[in-house]
């Protein structure tokens, strides 16, 4: 069991003061309308063709699209022979478009890997080019990133780098976003101190009573099944049931065991059941996906939602009159708080297509290089904000950012740490990932089943889930070993993992 960290009122007020200072500083910055002018295209030294060429880029869009649309416009102005086709697609379409494009030899020049395809697989199948020979001054460029962004086994193999994590993954997607007026009406101010889960349930009930059928305490996109798992997992993790993701389940890597039988998981599920039984959940939550739930908040349909920072720029842009604020996820066991662990490397990994033309590889290298410069990172942080945080901490401090976005990033800085990774410890565990089959029902589906009363015995369901996850991991390891991988369950045990600290090279060396 990890050592518990208590957030005192003093710490909380100190962090809030830092956040407020950040907001004040940000408020003095450039007006938003002038944000596009922050992008300046300068030569990286790449050999950009003078012939007409069409360059294609596909990623999952969202707030990233705001940056890329502005950047590509500037890039095409600077290189009038280059036409850029930018496709922002949902993940389920990326899962089809990218593999089909590779198979047909017509993939985008730069793409995000489908979620189900590991980098090891993409490299062994010849999908992606090594960045080493494409990005100008590669070694210098790579060295400019903070440690832990490029990790052997995660972003590259055999000394070559194949993946560029364009953004930091130091964030989590279940923090509190709330309607300031409704919470004030209920007499609750989450800025005064972290809410407990009991406070959260009571506040939701009070808001619902105040709403008298016009609005409700809590809303979520319950039709998007993964939301059920995310909320319960983070409730349990920040209360101490630490874990990292393996396949489509979780593993407490301090012990190597599946954590679902930890009573904190039952407590976390109980929060949702109490909200349901109080009638505090927005009607129709079960048939609503996450974007619909997000869109209902500014309409005043509910007082609180547990979601991610990507909502902030959307609401600021599309609902400027919506008075909302953010706070950490309520605490199951206050004041104990264990930071949320994320994997090493970064997020939003982008790749250069191995079969792209040399001219387009040079353009890709030129653009990747820009994101490794301080100016590029500041531009990213300014335009993308907290939704997909920039990697350079200094760039985040420098960027002209909305106060709420800056507050979110400061909160993540406090509440998120890098956890251990079996693939960094033993690259052969990549072979296990190739063997892992999805367990069904998984945590998210099980929680939804409990919530909808299709599962009567929650404890038995979590025990069964835990047994199936353990069996699947054992099966996948055995299958990988049979195919020649040198891997065992021991590779998933990190006894020196302290979730309050980033799990860096020193910790791996101790094993």
């Amino acid at each position, binding site marked *: 069991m990890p050592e518990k960290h208590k957030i005192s009122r003093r710490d909380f007020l100190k962090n809030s003061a830092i956040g407020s200072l950040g907001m004040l500083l940000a408020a003095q910055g450039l007006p938003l309308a002038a944000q596009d002018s922050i992008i300046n295209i300068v030569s990286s030294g790449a050999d950009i063709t003078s012939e007409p060429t069409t360059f294609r880029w596909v990623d999952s869009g969202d707030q990233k699209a705001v940056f890329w649309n502005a950047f590509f416009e500037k890039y095409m102005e600077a290189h009038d022979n280059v036409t850029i086709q930018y496709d922002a697609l949902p993940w389920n379409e990326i899962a*089809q478009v990218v593999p089909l494009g590779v198979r047909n030899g017509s993939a985008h020049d730069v793409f995000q890997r489908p979620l189900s395809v590991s980098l090891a697989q993409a490299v062994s199948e010849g999908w992606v080019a090594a960045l080493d020979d494409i990005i100008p001054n590669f070694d210098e460029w790579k060295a400019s990133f903070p440690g832990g962004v490029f990790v052997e086994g995660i972003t590259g193999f055999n000394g070559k780098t194949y993946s560029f994590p364009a953004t930091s993954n130091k964030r989590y997607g279940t923090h509190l976003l709330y309607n300031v007026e409704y919470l004030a009406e209920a007499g609750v101010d989450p800025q005064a101190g972290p809410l407990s889960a009991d406070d959260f349930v009571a506040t939701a009930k009070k808001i619902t009573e105040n709403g008298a059928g016009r609005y409700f305490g809590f809303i979520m996109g319950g*039709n998007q099944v993964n939301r059920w798992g995310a909320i319960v997992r983070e409730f349990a993790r920040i209360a101490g049931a630490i874990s990292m993701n393996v396949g*489509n389940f979780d593993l407490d890597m301090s012990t190597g065991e599946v954590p679902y039988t930890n009573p904190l998981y039952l407590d976390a599920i109980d929060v949702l059941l109490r909200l349901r039984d109080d009638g505090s959940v927005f009607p*129709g939550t*079960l048939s609503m996906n996450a974007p619909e739930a997000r869109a209902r908040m500014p309409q005043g349909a509910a007082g609180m939602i547990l979601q991610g920072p990507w909502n902030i720029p959307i609401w600021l842009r599309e609902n400027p009159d919506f008075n909302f604020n953010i706070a950490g996820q309520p605490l199951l066991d206050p004041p104990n708080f264990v930071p949320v662990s994320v994997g090493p490397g970064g997020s939003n990994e982008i790749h250069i297509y191995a079969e792209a033309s040399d001219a387009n590889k040079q353009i890709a290298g030129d653009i990747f290089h820009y994101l490794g410069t301080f100016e590029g990172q500041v531009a990213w942080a300014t335009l993308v904000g907290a939704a997909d945080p920039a990697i350079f901490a200094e760039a985040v401090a420098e960027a002209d950012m909305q106060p709420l976005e800056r507050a979110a990033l400061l909160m993540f800085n406090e509440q998120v740490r890098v956890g251990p990774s079996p693939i960094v410890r033993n690259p052969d565990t990549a072979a296990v990932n190739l063997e892992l089959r999805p367990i069904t029902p998984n945590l998210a589906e099980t929680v939804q089943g409990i919530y*909808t009363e299709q599962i009567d015995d929650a404890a038995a369901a979590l025990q069964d889930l835990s047994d199936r996850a353990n069996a699947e991991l054992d099966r996948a390891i055995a299958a990988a070993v049979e195919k020649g991988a040198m891997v065992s369950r021991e590779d998933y045990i990190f006894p020196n993992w302290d979730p309050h600290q980033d799990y860096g090279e020193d910790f791996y060396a101790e094993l």
Partner: protein
Amino acid sequence: MALAPPLSVSKPRKQTAISLMLRRISQHRWVYLFMLPSLILTALFTLYPIFASFYFSLFQWSGFTSDAYYIGLQNYQEVVPDKQFWNAFEHSFIFMLSSVPIKLSLALGIAILLNDRALRLAPIFRTMFFVPVVTTTAIVGIVMTFIMSPFNGPINTIMLDLGLIARPIDFLGDPKIALFSVVGVEIWKWLGNPMIYWLAALQTIPASLYEAAEVDGANWWRKFAFITLPLLKPFAIVIVLITAVGTLNVFALVQTMTGGGPYFASEVMEVYIYRTAFGAANSMTLPRLGYASAAAAFFGVSVMFLATIQIFAARWANRERAGLAAAETQLGDS
């Protein structure tokens, strides 16, 4: 354009079956030539996927990598004990058995009304019932989620205003009714298809039969029971089959309205196959095209088996009735 020459009467001689077939093809080469595009397209887009699916079902394969491992029947051995598979299997049949009778009965009723020459606005009504058929299914599914919403959705609002319900109904979120809510939309969406089939069938019945019955003093019900229904019977078998098979293809509607949820309460086979073929949503697990192909093949064969039983049962029933009728005639003559 030269027409195919008439069949020549060949002298009796020993010929192999193959040479006879080749000769026949040669004699009717224009017919086969005209059929060729259709045959090629059928082979490419119907036969090849069917055989490929059976072939892929023998492999452990994600669908996009080159490392497919032959594992024989292991995927089938995994499908058979999978509770999720049987859950989806059951839902597909519940969907079909609840949709087809209602849809066909309603469609027949509407077709009979629209077939009445006295109804002057029949073409307008026919178009009205057929419009949902040509509307994009996914769009219908998404729009229906708004219409059925428990919060400000028009259906709940009307029922609340009329005092029919005290609390809004979560049509798509309540596991007890989610599947049947989708069935309701599916019936509305595809009602126009069997309606057109029934109309076509009704128009084959000679008007003289009804006129003769009227002369004999038959009322509407007796005309329907003794003329319309018996003469529709040969068409009914085909219409039931087409409609039943169509009702097993409801992926777009279920996926957009419930995604198979909540907690698999409305997961039908196609959604199950999609989920296993392309990987669990938002997870790093690999898609399993081989396994999904095995599930699809198993389900396809099961449906074919049931359809075959249905055809044989229908033929047996017809023969029995024909036999009885013949016996009755003989008895009457004697």
